[in-house]
């Protein structure tokens, strides 16, 4: 757990220490032999033919770890799973990103990776929904679909030769995200699960946990028709829309959005893995108190 950049007074510090000890006692079952640091030798029996996976290297005939982490074994494969690392994308991951550039027939998105991800024009549904070849007119209208600094949610399609990601947003639930907040958390806190899109019905809030550490909390949208609307009457609608944004989100929903976002912030600072249940529990706990820094101390006693 990284140092918490909070100014805690004495009693709060003591409470934090107690909670940490409680957590550690619960997790003492974890095999401490399995964790290694850089340049530790990994114990293997030399007669078997061991496959060396990620995070390992061979030095002087021994298998040595190159990252700090936990040693995992699958049949004959030995690899080191690091606990804290950069975002490592897989095919099929849900990503939330921000547009940084509108290039020729593609958008470039920033996604907390060492390179910008690419979203091709052909990987995006056309506004009128027809399946056809993208023409030059479509290319000229790209800016009407997504502009710079728009937040988009998409899925990883494959890797390109240079290692950058190619995304696709072909389904109705992908696309531009509006009326909400974007949060940044360390990417290793978001584990891969069956579902990353969560719709909190009782609060009317959409929660999207991007695997790259970008989390979106916003008002619930049933279908992403925003693109279709924009194509119809450009100028007038845009003016009306900007006023509509702030009007249409009711106060209660906005409060809920902020509360959920704060719950996520707190959990990420304390180093909890982000799943729907944990976020909801933190949310419920904080409903009894006010929002704000006070909430953070309460979640110390919150052992999951």
């Amino acid at each position, binding site marked *: 757990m990284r140092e918490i950049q909070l100014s805690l007074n004495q009693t709060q510090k003591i409470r934090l220490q107690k909670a940490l000890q409680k957590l550690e006692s619960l997790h003492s079952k974890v095999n401490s032999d399995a964790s290694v640091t850089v340049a530790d030798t990994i114990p293997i029996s030399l007669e078997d*033919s061991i*496959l060396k996976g990620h*995070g390992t290297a061979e030095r002087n005939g021994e298998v040595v770890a190159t990252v700090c982490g936990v040693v995992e074994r699958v*049949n*004959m*494969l030995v690899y080191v799973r690091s606990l804290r690392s950069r975002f490592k994308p897989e095919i*099929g991951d849900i990503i939330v990103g921000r547009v940084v550039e509108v290039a020729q027939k593609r958008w470039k998105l920033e996604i907390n990776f060492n390179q910008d991800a690419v979203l091709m024009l052909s990987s995006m549904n056309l506004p009128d929904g027809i399946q056809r070849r993208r023409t030059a007119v479509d290319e000229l209208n790209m800016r009407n679909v997504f502009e710079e600094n728009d937040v988009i949610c998409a899925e990883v399609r494959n890797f390109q030769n240079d290692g950058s990601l190619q995304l696709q947003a072909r389904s109705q639930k992908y696309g531009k995200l509006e009326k909400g907040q974007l949060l940044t958390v360390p990417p290793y806190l978001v584990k891969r699960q*069956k579902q990353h899109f969560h719709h909190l019905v009782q609060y009317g809030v959409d929660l999207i946990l991007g695997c790259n550490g970008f989390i979106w909390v916003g008002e619930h949208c049933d279908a992403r028709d925003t693109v279709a609307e924009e194509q119809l009457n450009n100028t007038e609608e845009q003016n009306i829309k900007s006023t509509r944004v702030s009007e249409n989100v009711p106060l209660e929903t906005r409060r809920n959005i902020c509360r959920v976002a704060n719950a996520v912030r707190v959990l990420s600072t304390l180093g909890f893995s982000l799943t729907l249940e944990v976020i909801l529990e933190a949310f419920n706990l904080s409903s009894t108190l006010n929002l704000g820094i006070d909430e953070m101390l309460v979640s110390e006693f919150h052992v999951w």
Partner: protein
Amino acid sequence: MSGRAGRRGIDDRGICILMVDEKLEPPTAKMMLKGSADSLNSAFHLSYNMLLNQMRCEDGDPENLLRNSFYQFQADRAIPDLEKQVKVLEEERDSMIIEEEDNLKNYYDLIQQYKSLKKDVCDIVFSPKYCLPFLQAGRIVCLQCTGINESSPSFSIEDKVTWGVIINFDRVKSFSEDDASRKPEDSNYTVDVLTRCVVSRDGIAKKNIKIVPLKESGEPLVVSVSISEITSLSSARLYLSKDLLPLEVRENTLKKVLEILSRNPTGLPLDPEGDMKIQSNSYKKAVRRIEALEHLFEKHEIANLPLSSKNSKYVTSDDVVELKGKVACEISSADELTLTELMFNGVLKDIKVEEMISLLSCFVWQEKLQDAAKPREELDLLFSQLQDTARRVAKLQLECKVQIDVENFVSSFRPDIMEAVYAWAKGSKFYEIMEITQVFEGSLIRAIRRLEEVLQQLIQAAKSIGETELEAKFEEAVSKIKRDIVFAASLYL
């Protein structure tokens, strides 16, 4: 009939003249000319690869895929017919009134079990290994009468049997190719028996010989029966006269049999364990089981494929694809589960590149070749490792109640072209490897090309688990086989 006369798009009428050179029945000719096309039956099969790839992305819904497939559509279409059949059968069943149905059902089940177990015992007792010494001329045997259908259920434990005298026995020459490898004790035998028969002549002038009980009317004849029709051997032996052609001699022999029977109603059966000295364990087990009957049931499960993946760490309990699953996602040209298991067991790591290539060739060769040469020692060892892995995978599937035949699955991997591919990887020319095996050139080329595809997918898979040595090995393998005429894009060189 396929094909038609005339130019496409220009002629709307054409004339076909059929030259028939052998006798055709009118219905057959009609079917040839006017018959309907082959019906299109879907053979849709959801492979593990597809299942894992679906689970990888959030939207993947394999059940939806199955539900919307053509296979399901055809199955649904067939439902009304099946329902009609069910109704008809139900009416038939309701119209038959049986008293005390439950008890009767139990009794019937027990009888069936008893019969099957008795048959097992008979098979063991009458395997040529044990009974050949006792098939001497003059021994009295108990036979089954012909005309007993196995399909019509009989409610008694007693079979319709009769008695006869062994004259001789002979070995059957079977037409299968494995004849040379069969030992004499395993092949089939027929026994010539003198017993009471009824000869009738069919309309097409074929003789039909039926064996009937001794006391009924008929003639004493010598017939050949296979060993399976003999129910038991007797310890009594008769003195046979040398010449059995005259009718009276045969009648007398049968009369002697009747006399022995009347004196000893049971017929003095040979005790299997005592006299024939059958010691095998299976026999004892079968006998014990006859005393303790058991019921077996089979269940039929269709969509249990994901379970077996979970059992072997391909997918976690939350249906998130794990590392092994990711490797299996990459492989689509060969059997993904077996190949993934092989890779993770380190089998592919230690062996040389050429040996690895020939091992992988077993995955892409699906034809059955007769008289295939056995590959050399090292390759054979690798092949047996492959078979072990395949057997384990099949057993795992069986445990998860997927309908699969283990031995069939294991024998679908054929080592026929291992030698040829080994030579190709070592750098031989194409005409040299054609001399090694007898397959068609095109099949071999197709197999090698498919092998290259599998290797490319394996490169991706090795990359995903981070094993750089293995990846380099696969790439080297690709460069060794991708050359010359096999991979020539066009034959106009």
